[in-house]
């Protein structure tokens, strides 16, 4: 990304934020901002804890953050890891070879790049891809011999995957010792040790290639009950951008690599969705959002770029193709906040964080709101942190402090955590040696490296039911609002008709108490968000409001005919619910990003 573009977006977002203030001038969030204007700046950005020079320095350890899209690798003595694609690539132009990892830099013509990725939904399943990539890395980037290794694995990394990993590392690579941990844990470690400097509750939000996880830590431990995963990540955003560009302008379905760069170069998270939609729909100079992007031709232009204002189109080499990016620039990252925009029923990031906080013990909730850490590639979207902060601020009680921390490099933050962990004397006891593995087998490593095996469901269920769990329910009970025809009109009447089903229908969420106590002020905040008539309620409601009225007047004629569909919708909702006792069916259901089947 060029710096000029960054500044451009920065100034742009500042402008947007001002607009935002004007629009939501009397919103609660604004009052809060006034009272604590420096709130967002309070976020610690430098290391408070200076690394002690006399600190324990163990043997150099190899740290491997094995992401689904990029691998971050380096020695604990390095300042930063090497980042390289965790995949094998093929190109049309060179049919005689594969490109592994960063070998792709040697390739000139990247059009029609074909990916072989080792992961499915974030979990390594294609070993005929993963193994060669590791071979390449350990032979060419970072030698592995005789070194202990800390590597990452996703949460709930499945037993067969861990077994193969053991076999590859212990038996084939013959490493000395190994420790496996979730990237969220490493990020938490880095945050607690080198950012805040003490043990506080925190939430690590990792928005990566395959999915986005929201994981709370209380007393330094994962609080499994409230940990959530949204099946939406950078891969889906790129594919979505690819799809809409192909439909609206130019066929680019085969150009995942190029469009990923377009995404990184032009997309941003809007602070005010509705306002940006308005600007993007205006013509001429009033449209400050539209940008022209020069696509690479891999001849004169190796990498695409945003065409600067005033740049003469004639100067650009003839024959090169230009994309016009308008509302795509912010509607694509917006999916992270509203997956429902493309019909995925799941909560968005902020809603997920709020629910996560509400599922945590009462006393820890304010602390969690104070320590939210954003990592993963999607955190690099301009405006991402600001949006998470602003939305959280509007959801959470006024008297809470909200801090959202985005590390300097969200992609390598987990790796940095691994580096810090390597200098902790305790690492010795965490590593499993080759001898231990040979003696006790893969079952032992699985047991040791899988902290979820010790997450006891019963423990949480037997907790005295706090009256405040209602806060969750007040949101969740209206959950059925979302079950609508994907493309149909949002119909309240239909919902009321369906009401009777809902008690029996709600799944694991309804295990919580069903009382109606409104002691937590966060309930009110949430209620406000939900209430349809409140003009001060935030963004989404505001949007839905005028739109719906406009809709009813405009589509009166159609409505009669549409009512037929309503009947369908109602029946279908019932069907979905009645199938829920069948657990495997609901697996399948959730596999497709909690969407319709």
């Amino acid at each position, binding site marked *: 990304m060029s710096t000029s573009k960054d500044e451009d977006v920065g100034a742009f977002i500042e402008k947007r934020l001002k607009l935002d203030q004007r629009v939501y001038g009397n919103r609660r969030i604004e009052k809060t901002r006034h009272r604590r204007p420096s709130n967002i700046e309070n976020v610690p950005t430098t290391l408070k804890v200076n690394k002690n020079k006399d600190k324990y320095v163990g043997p150099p350890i190899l740290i491997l953050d094995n992401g689904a899209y990029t691998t971050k690798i380096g020695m604990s003595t390095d300042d930063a890891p090497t980042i390289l694609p965790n995949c094998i690539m093929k190109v049309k132009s060179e049919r005689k070879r594969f490109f592994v990892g960063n070998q792709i830099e040697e390739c000139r013509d990247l059009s*029609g790049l074909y990916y072989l990725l080792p992961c499915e939904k974030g979990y390594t399943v294609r070993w005929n891809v993963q193994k060669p990539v590791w071979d390449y890395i350990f032979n060419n980037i970072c030698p592995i011999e005789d070194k202990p290794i800390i590597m990452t694995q996703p949460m709930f990394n499945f037993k067969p995957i861990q077994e193969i990993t053991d076999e590859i590392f212990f038996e084939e690579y013959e490493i000395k010792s190994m420790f496996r941990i979730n990237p969220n844990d490493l990020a938490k470690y880095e945050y607690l040790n080198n950012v805040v400097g003490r043990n506080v509750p925190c939430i690590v939000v990792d928005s990566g290639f395959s999915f986005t996880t929201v994981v709370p830590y209380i007393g330094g431990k994962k609080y499994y009950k409230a940990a959530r995963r949204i099946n939406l990540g950078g891969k889906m955003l790129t594919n979505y951008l690819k799809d809409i560009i192909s439909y609206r302008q130019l066929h680019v379905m085969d150009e995942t690599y190029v469009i990923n760069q377009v995404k990184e170069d032009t997309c941003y998270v809007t602070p005010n969705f509705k306002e940006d939609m308005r600007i993007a729909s205006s013509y001429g100079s009033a449209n400050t959002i539209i940008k022209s992007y020069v696509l690479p031709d891999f001849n004169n232009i190796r990498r695409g770029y945003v065409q600067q204002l005033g740049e003469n189109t004639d100067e650009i080499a003839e024959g090169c193709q230009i994309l016009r990016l308008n509302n795509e620039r912010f509607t694509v990252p917006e999916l992270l906040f509203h997956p429902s925009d493309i019909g995925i029923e799941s909560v968005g990031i902020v809603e997920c964080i709020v629910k996560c906080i509400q599922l945590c013990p009462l006393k820890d909730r304010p602390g969690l709101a104070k320590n939210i850490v954003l990592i993963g590639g999607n955190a690099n979207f301009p405006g991402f942190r600001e949006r998470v902060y602003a939305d959280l601020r509007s959801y959470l009680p006024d008297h809470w402090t909200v801090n959202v921390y985005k590390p300097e490099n969200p992609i390598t933050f987990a790796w940095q955590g691994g580096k810090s962990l390597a200098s902790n004397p305790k690492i010795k006891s965490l590593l499993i040696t080759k001898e231990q593995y040979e003696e006790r087998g893969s079952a032992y490593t699985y047991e040791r490296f899988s902290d979820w095996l010790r997450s006891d469901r019963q423990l949480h269920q037997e907790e005295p039911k706090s009256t405040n769990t209602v806060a969750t329910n007040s949101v969740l009970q209206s959950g059925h609002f979302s079950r609508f025809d994907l493309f149909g009109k949002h119909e309240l009447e239909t919902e009321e008709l369906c009401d009777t089903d809902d008690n029996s229908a709600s799944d694991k969420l309804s295990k919580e108490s069903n009382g109606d106590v409104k002691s937590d002020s966060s309930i009110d905040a949430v209620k406000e968000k939900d209430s349809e008539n409140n003009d001060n309620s935030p963004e989404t409601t505001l949007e839905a409001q005028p739109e719906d009225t406009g809709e009813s007047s405009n589509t009166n004629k159609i409505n009669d005919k549409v009512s037929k569909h309503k009947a369908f919708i109602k029946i279908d909702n019932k069907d979905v619910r009645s199938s829920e006792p069948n657990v495997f069916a609901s697996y399948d259901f959730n596999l497709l990003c909690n969407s319709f089947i």
Partner: protein
Amino acid sequence: MTISKLTLRGSTRLKENEKRRIVDETSRKRRHRKMLETLEADNYHEDPHADLVMSKKIPKFDENLETRTRSKRKEKSADYYQMKFRKHFLQLLEEDRVEAEVTRRYSYMDMASEDTTMPYRHFCAVCGFFSPYVCLTCGMRYCTIRCMDTHMDTRCLKWAA
């Protein structure tokens, strides 16, 4: 766009409408599922080397690597691990669920996010702006006559179904 043109278009379309069948909910959901599958895909196109592998023997890139420090004896081919693994993602999920149930721990599926409680926002399937209209045939949305025309000519399910 003049009014007369509009009404003219409208009237022809009305005639068309009578003939057109309404695509049922199942097909609509199938379309949506297909769309989500596309969004989950690693590539959209065919493997550019697919035919090549069949016809010519490509040197395994393992052999291209220059430095080999490990003993050859221990080396196993990448395919060996793939053969040994042979698990489908769904299979992994099911095993995880069973184990979680027995030991009463949390599982992969417990971590799935809840459904949203926010109202849905609706966008024109053609241009991406807010849309008030629904296509009677297939249920997708459009915002203006212009977009409706594009929709009818392209992604409307009357063609696909």
